[in-house]
């Protein structure tokens, strides 16, 4: 069984379902990337995996354990970390405090991890005492990813981590994600910078209208002209 196995998820925000029998799986230490048009339900699927959405059907297991009924906080304690697409920083707290909050559930010394984050995003070290709300869009995004890395999760979920970050930082970020995966952490991310993302992905999911349209290895999806044309911008 996969490390994360979210199968046949069906549900939505109100009466109408957004997700229809949607399945996502990530193996241990692998990177899975979700792509798809806007409004396909990618973020919704992420929220569902994280327990922020009530599912009408389907089930989520982590490392073989059924976590379908758990609250988001409980999932955090099971080793899941999440960077939402929007509202992903604490605006009136300093950058450093944002990172500390990422480490909230950790009882060990997290100063090394913080140093690692600062090494990854040097601008954050410079702005460590500034409130996150006063940062530029791309800087915030870096704070958001940094916060999730602080958790030292077993499964890291990123909803468009590279939206708004400069190419150089994006490269750094993808590099870092690969490194993280190498340490055995599983990664599930949504990306619109899909070509770069699929390049490093073990597994790719194309979601359309809340359902799985294509599922294959990242390379295979990249190679599929139909997928390239309709979803990856040619």
């Amino acid at each position, binding site marked *: 069984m996969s490390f994360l196995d979210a199968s046949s998820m069906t549900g939505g925000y109100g009466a109408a379902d957004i997700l229809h029998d949607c399945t996502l799986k990530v193996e241990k230490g692998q990177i899975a990337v979700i792509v798809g048009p806007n409004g396909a339900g990618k973020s919704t699927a992420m929220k569902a995996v994280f327990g922020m959405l009530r599912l009408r059907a389907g089930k989520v297991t982590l490392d073989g354990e059924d976590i379908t009924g758990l609250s988001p906080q409980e999932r955090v304690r099971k080793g899941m970390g999440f960077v939402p697409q929007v509202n992903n920083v604490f605006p009136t707290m300093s950058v450093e405090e944002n990172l500390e909050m990422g480490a909230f559930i950790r009882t060990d010394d997290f100063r090394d991890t913080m140093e690692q984050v600062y090494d990854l995003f040097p601008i954050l070290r410079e702005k460590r005492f500034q409130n996150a709300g006063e940062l530029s*869009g791309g800087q915030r995004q870096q704070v958001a990813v940094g916060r999730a890395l602080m958790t030292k999760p077993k499964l890291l979920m990123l909803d468009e981590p590279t*939206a*708004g*970050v400069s190419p150089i930082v994006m490269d750094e970020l993808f590099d870092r994600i690969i490194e993280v*995966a190498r340490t055995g952490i599983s990664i599930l991310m949504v990306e619109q910078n899909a070509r770069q993302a699929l390049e490093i992905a073990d597994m790719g999911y194309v979601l359309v209208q809340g359902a799985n349209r294509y599922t294959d290895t990242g390379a295979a999806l990249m190679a599929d002209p139909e997928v390239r044309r309709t979803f990856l911008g040619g």
Partner: protein
Amino acid sequence: MIRVENLHKHFGGFHAVDGASLEIATGSITGLIGPNGAGKSTLFNVIAGVHKPTSGTVTMDGEDITGLPPHELFHKGLLRTFQIAHEFPTMTVRENLMMVPGGQTGETLWNAWFQRGRIAEEEAALLKKADEVLDFLTISHLKDERAGNLSGGQKKLLELGRTMMVEAKIVFLDEVGAGVNRTLLNTIGDAIVRLNKERGYTFCVIEHDMDFIGRLCDPVIVMAEGKVLAEGTPDTIMQNEAVIEAYLGRGLKNKVKTGAAQ
């Protein structure tokens, strides 16, 4: 058309824009790129009247527009989108668009009470226009949805859609592409080119997607640390060592993914 001279914007002791001077020529699609925190959005905000500059001037067609409030700039034909989407969350998507055009008859109370015939006509026209825009953005199925319920990318589309509701002289787009599906972004790029060619809109575009910039923009202005670092055609810019160093980078170090499971 737009001329920015020696502009400074300080937040406390921090110089977000630090003496930038640049020009956006009429009829161009000017790209504005630069590292995160370079001061691009701040520059936009100063031009669009959201922030008062610490010093420096902004002129539009020779007229000093420094510090004018945003709503006056709108009526001068200067439109902008926001990097972090600013939709009207409790209104429907369609209403989000219909509210845009200025000088609507029904916007004064007196007319709202006593000019209902004229308002009805105008509304019908607005509705048609809004539906066209929604069609173009591929979100017409959402026209009666509350804008607050849109997905991240859909909000960005709506952001763009608003600028398409009126005739504009110059449109400032702050990362319309971030979070937008690349296939759709291509279509948007085409539309920008079309608006530029057919209706003579001037664009100034902030974007981190270099494909997009390369395809659309000429010239491209690079900002770093609040100043203009370089300016030129996309090709020269992408070869510029300083720009590569500060912004573009040299691609992934770990070209090949070798996960533990493989």
